[in-house]
C-alpha cells in the first residue's frame, strides 16, 4: 500500500501521528477505488467498443445470469468494505481516545470567532499557541449556533455544539503555524471564522503563556486588539459601512434610532449593554443576531473597547 507520509494525495502535510494513519488509510481507499473504477469503467469502454453494432441482424447470446460471477463481485467488494470499516474504526478510535496527560484548553466559539482560554486564565482570540510534542485536549462549546473546529493538517474535526461540550485532541510533531477553519455552516461570515494554531517550542510556549497579553497597552489599544479579532466581522470602520452590524465610525455620542421606535444616545452604558445584552436594544435596520460578549470579555477588555470606540471619529 502507499507509504505513510503521503502528501502526494493532495492532503496538506500531516503534522500528527494520527494524521499519518489517516493518510495511509486514505491511500488504501484510493487504491481500492481506483481498481474498482478501472474494472467498471475500463470494462464498460472495452465492451462498448468491442461489441458495437455491426448490423440489424446481430446475433446476441442470451445470458440471464451467472451465479458464481455475481457472488464474486458482491463478496470481494464486501471484504474490501469490511477492511475499510475496521481500519476506519481503528483510526477513529485513535482520533477520539483522549490521552490522560493532556494539556487542556477551553474553546469558546461564537459568531464568528474562536476564543481559547488556558488553565491559567490566559485568553487568546483566534490564535491557539501550543508546545510541540505535547498532548493537547480542547474542550469546546458554542455560545450561539453550531460551529466546527477543523484543522486540516491534523486531519481532525469536531462540531461545537451550544449547550454541551465536545472535544478534540492532538499532538503536533512539527513546529509551524496551521490553519483552523470553521467547518459547520454558521451564517453570514462562516467563511471568515478562521484561526491559527501556532506550534512552538516548549520554552517559547512557557514564555508566551506567562506574558500578560495587554502588558503596556493603553485601554484604547486593548480595545483595538479586541475589535480586530472579535468585532471586525460585523462592524466596519468606514462611515456608513453596513456589514451584519452597524459601522463604528463616529459611533460614540451619536443618536441611534432603534427598531420598534425610540432613540438612544451612544454612551458608555449603552455600549456596555450592547455588548452584554445585545438584544436589549436593536438598532434600526438590523437584526438581533449579535452574540453576547458576557463571559467572553472581562471588565478590562470591555473598558478597552469603549475607549477604542471613543477614538473612532
Amino acid at each position, binding site marked *: 500500500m502507499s507509504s505513510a507520509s503521503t502528501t502526494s494525495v493532495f492532503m496538506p502535510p500531516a503534522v500528527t501521528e494520527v494524521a499519518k494513519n489517516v493518510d495511509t488509510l486514505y491511500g488504501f481507499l484510493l487504491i481500492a477505488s481506483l481498481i474498482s473504477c478501472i474494472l467498471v469503467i475500463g470494462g464498460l469502454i472495452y465492451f462498448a467498443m468491442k461489441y458495437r453494432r455491426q448490423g440489424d441482424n446481430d446475433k446476441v447470446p442470451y445470458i440471464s445470469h451467472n451465479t458464481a460471477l455475481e457472488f464474486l463481485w458482491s463478496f470481494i467488494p464486501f471484504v474490501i468494505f469490511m477492511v475499510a470499516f475496521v481500519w476506519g474504526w481503528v483510526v477513529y478510535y485513535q482520533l477520539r481516545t483522549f490521552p490522560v496527560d493532556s494539556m487542556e484548553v477551553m474553546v469558546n466559539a461564537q459568531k464568528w470567532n474562536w476564543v481559547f482560554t488556558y488553565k491559567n486564565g490566559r485568553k487568546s482570540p483566534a490564535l491557539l499557541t501550543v508546545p510541540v510534542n505535547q498532548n493537547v485536549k480542547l474542550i469546546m462549546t458554542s455560545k450561539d449556533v453550531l460551529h466546527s473546529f477543523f484543522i486540516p493538517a491534523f486531519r481532525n474535526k469536531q462540531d461545537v455544539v451550544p*449547550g454541551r*461540550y*465536545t472535544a478534540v485532541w492532538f499532538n503536533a510533531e512539527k513546529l509551524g503555524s496551521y490553519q483552523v477553519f470553521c467547518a459547520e455552516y454558521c451564517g453570514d461570515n462562516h467563511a471568515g471564522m478562521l484561526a491559527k494554531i501556532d506550534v512552538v517550542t516548549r520554552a517559547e510556549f512557557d514564555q508566551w503563556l506567562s506574558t500578560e497579553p495587554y502588558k503596556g497597552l493603553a485601554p484604547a489599544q486593548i480595545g483595538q486588539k479586541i475589535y480586530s479579532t472579535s468585532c471586525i466581522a460585523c462592524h466596519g470602520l468606514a462611515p456608513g459601512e453596513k456589514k451584519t452590524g452597524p459601522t463604528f465610525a463616529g459611533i460614540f455620542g451619536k443618536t441611534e434610532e432603534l427598531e420598534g421606535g425610540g432613540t438612544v444616545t451612544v454612551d458608555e452604558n449603552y455600549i456596555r449593554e450592547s455588548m452584554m445584552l445585545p438584544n436589549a436594544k436593536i438598532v434600526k435596520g438590523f437584526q438581533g443576531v449579535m452574540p453576547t460578549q458576557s463571559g467572553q470579555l472581562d471588565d478590562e477588555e470591555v473598558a478597552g473597547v469603549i475607549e477604542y470606540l471613543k477614538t473612532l471619529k
Partner: protein
Amino acid sequence: MSSGSEHHVIPLKVYFNVLGALLVLTVITVAAARVDFGQMNTIIALGIASIKAFLVLSYFMHLKYDDKTFWVIFGTAIFGLLVLYFFSELDIMTRVLEINVL
C-alpha cells in the same frame, strides 16, 4: 388483478363487545395510574394502550378479516419508528462528554 374477495361482515354483537372491552380497559388504565408501580407505570400504561390499539385494529378496522398485507404495511410503519427511536437513543445514551447546562 382484482381479488374479488368476499368482504367479511362483522356481526353487530362483536362491535359492541369490543367497545365494552375498550371502556373497561380505559377504566383499568386510569386506575392503574392511581397506584404507583414505580418503573412499571409506563410499561403498564403502554401495555394496556397496545391492547386497546390491537382491538381497534382487529375489529373496528377489521384487519383480522382483511388482506394480511395491511398488517405488513402497518407493521412497517411501526418498525420505521422503532428504527428512528433506537438509533437516536443509541447516540444520546452513549455520549460520554455530555454535560447538560440545565
